[in-house]
């Protein structure tokens, strides 16, 4: 009987999930604690964030049977998928969570035991490894019925998702975004991408047995655009001195724009967060108590080390106020035009930083440095992420030449905690701190 899973899902959504969140004490106000010497009190919105995340993964377990499940890459145009009613999960986000909980290495080891090279992207290794044991902070992801990917962020997701397609014997839909090597007019690239979208819509209609709801599509784009603009305003609050939030916070608060984009819950969340941040900005409450220097972070986070780094930088009075990574879900939003849905989606998704030549990235970084009044740059050279990392050494040099901005390169990884050299990193950071103080 197929409506039993649907009933169970509804029950879980309306009653089960909220109960489970209460039971897990997520959302419960903590009893009064002595003020932290380094940080301002945590944002109230964070409780809601944890609820959203918890609920997202909890409910996903009840989706199979009630609705089809899709695994989606962080840069895929999910707006096209939403009208077809899939429960969407983002393995990259799941891997980041595993990394943050410091279990990435263990999960990678499982994948390596199955022959996957330790030189492969750790998000992929964690995902491929987790399926073999299911032992992750949020449990095994529910089996997908569909894979929806775009290579705008990297080609690696294509290699990774091909394996998933083979393993689960399910369709892989790829939205291919040609690399923007030059600044020439869109021409063939745009036509190609729009052509793909039209074909993808037909394919989804075939797979799901539902016809494409253009009204719902339009509404989703509006919702996603608004959410993305809100996210952009959230990030912009860090232009204030002192910044009411840091990039380390933003790494956590970015989950909804990545994984819940196009859903009401994400928009609601950022309205809440923005309100709180604007209030703090107005009252001059800085995220770190003593903001002496403002920094930019380049590349994805070093998830297993976020807390340690947050403490380390705060103890030196240094606040990360901007990052190329968090900015990626706000930078191309202005391109979205509900009047030309497919075309504008194609533009917005193909113009992201990682799909663009390096001069574009450098210009973006220069602009952020100026707007956010950045004093120094920390460049995370991530083993796992070649599109981000190849070119960083030159970016470092060029920013120094153009803006006289000091920077430091940390060689580490996004989610595999084993790829972190404590002593070497600490030495580099200390030299960087000295350089900044003396600047």
């Amino acid at each position, binding site marked *: 009987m197929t409506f039993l899973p649907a009933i169970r899902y509804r029950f879980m959504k309306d009653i089960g999930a909220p109960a489970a969140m209460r039971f897990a004490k997520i959302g419960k106000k903590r009893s009064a604690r002595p003020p932290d010497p380094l940080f301002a009190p945590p944002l109230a919105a964070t409780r809601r964030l944890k609820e959203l995340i918890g609920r997202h993964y909890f409910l996903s377990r009840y989706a199979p049977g009630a609705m089809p499940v899709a695994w989606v890459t962080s840069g895929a145009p999910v707006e096209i998928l939403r009208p077809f009613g899939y429960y969407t999960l983002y393995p990259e986000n799941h891997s980041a969570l595993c990394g943050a909980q410091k279990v990435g290495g263990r999960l990678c*080891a499982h994948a*390596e*035991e*199955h*022959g996957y090279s330790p030189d492969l992207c750790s998000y992929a290794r964690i995902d491929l490894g987790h399926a073999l044991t299911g032992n992750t902070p949020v449990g095994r992801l529910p089996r997908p019925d569909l894979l929806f990917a775009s290579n705008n962020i990297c080609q690696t997701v294509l290699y990774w998702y091909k394996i998933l397609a083979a393993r689960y014997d399910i369709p892989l839909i790829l939205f291919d975004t040609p690399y923007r090597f030059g600044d020439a007019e869109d021409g063939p690239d745009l036509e190609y991408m729009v052509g793909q979208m039209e074909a993808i819509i037909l394919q989804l209609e075939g797979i799901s047995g539902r016809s494409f709801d253009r009204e719902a599509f339009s509404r989703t784009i509006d919702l996603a655009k608004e959410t993305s603009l809100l996210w952009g305003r959230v990030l912009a609050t860090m232009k204030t001195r002192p910044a009411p939030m840091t990039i380390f916070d933003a790494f956590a608060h970015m989950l909804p724009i990545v994984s819940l984009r196009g859903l009401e819950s994400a928009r609601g969340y950022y309205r809440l967060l923005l309100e709180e941040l604007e209030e703090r900005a107005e009252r001059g409450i800085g995220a770190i108590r003593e903001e002496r220097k403002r920094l930019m972070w380049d590349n994805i986070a070093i998830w297993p080390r976020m807390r340690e780094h947050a403490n380390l930088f705060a103890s030196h009075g240094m606040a990360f106020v901007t990052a190329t990574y968090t900015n990626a879900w706000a930078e191309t939003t202005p391109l979205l035009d509900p009047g030309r849905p497919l075309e504008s989606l194609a533009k917005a998704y193909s113009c992201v930083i990682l799909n663009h030549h390096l001069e574009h990235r450098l210009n973006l970084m220069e602009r952020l440095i100026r707007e956010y009044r950045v004093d120094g740059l920390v460049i995370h050279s991530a083993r796992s992420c070649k599109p981000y990392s190849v070119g960083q050494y030159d970016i470092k040099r060029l920013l120094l030449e153009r803006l006289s901005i000091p920077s430091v390169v940390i060689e580490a990884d996004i989610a595999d905690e*084993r790829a972190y050299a404590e002593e070497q990193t600490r030495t580099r950071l200390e030299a960087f701190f000295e350089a900044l103080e003396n600047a």
Partner: protein
Amino acid sequence: MHYAAGIDVGSLSTEAVILDSEARIVGESILETGFHSTRAAEKAFEAALAQAGLPAEAIEAAVATGYGRISVPFAAKRITEISCHALGAWRLFPDTGTVIDIGGQDSKVIQVGTGGRVLDFTMNDKCAAGTGRFLDVMAAKLEVPLGDLGRLSLEARGEATISSVCTVFAESEVVSLVARNHPREEIIRGIHRSIVHRVVSMVKVVGVQGQVTMTGGVALNQGVVALLSEELGRPVRVPAEPRTVGAFGAALHALKNGA
């Protein structure tokens, strides 16, 4: 009566085994390879002959194996140590399905089929962790004779944790533990846990089949054997002389293929 010989020229030690046509060991030797592989092979061969009381001409077939196998001019054939350890271990324990060989400079896991055939294998030869070298370095750091490591680790009540996967970084960790007066036996147990972890990861790549037999010099370390057995969740058999299994297998190949 016919006789066959197997010579295993490793980077650290060289072994020779002489068999009669019933595959009984009539002579064997173990010595340090030193600087000259060919010389070491000759000396090992001579020593095994002496033990057997045979002249060189009595040997009808000889096979060389090991790192220095091309340095044995008097061997008619060269076969890799993978094939030799597989055949040798299987001959000693015919229900062997998996061979784990931890040598001085590399380690291997071999899936063995009927007749001692190699079905699959994996080797760790890129880094010292997971090989005898790792234990050498640590024993030196702790100022403990290599041969005492096993016994001492079995006396440990607890176990120190060594988290680095790299030998060089692990060495620093050991130095810190010693400086903090951590009990020596517990450090040694931690070192053994490290090497076993590496080896078990390799085993999972090939998969454990049937009974497990361990060969190579590190098999003399009862501490490592015990932990390996614990982590694999099954018994690990060690031949009476694990260091000569390669040469034994080579000699068996020589017998099989004849002159």
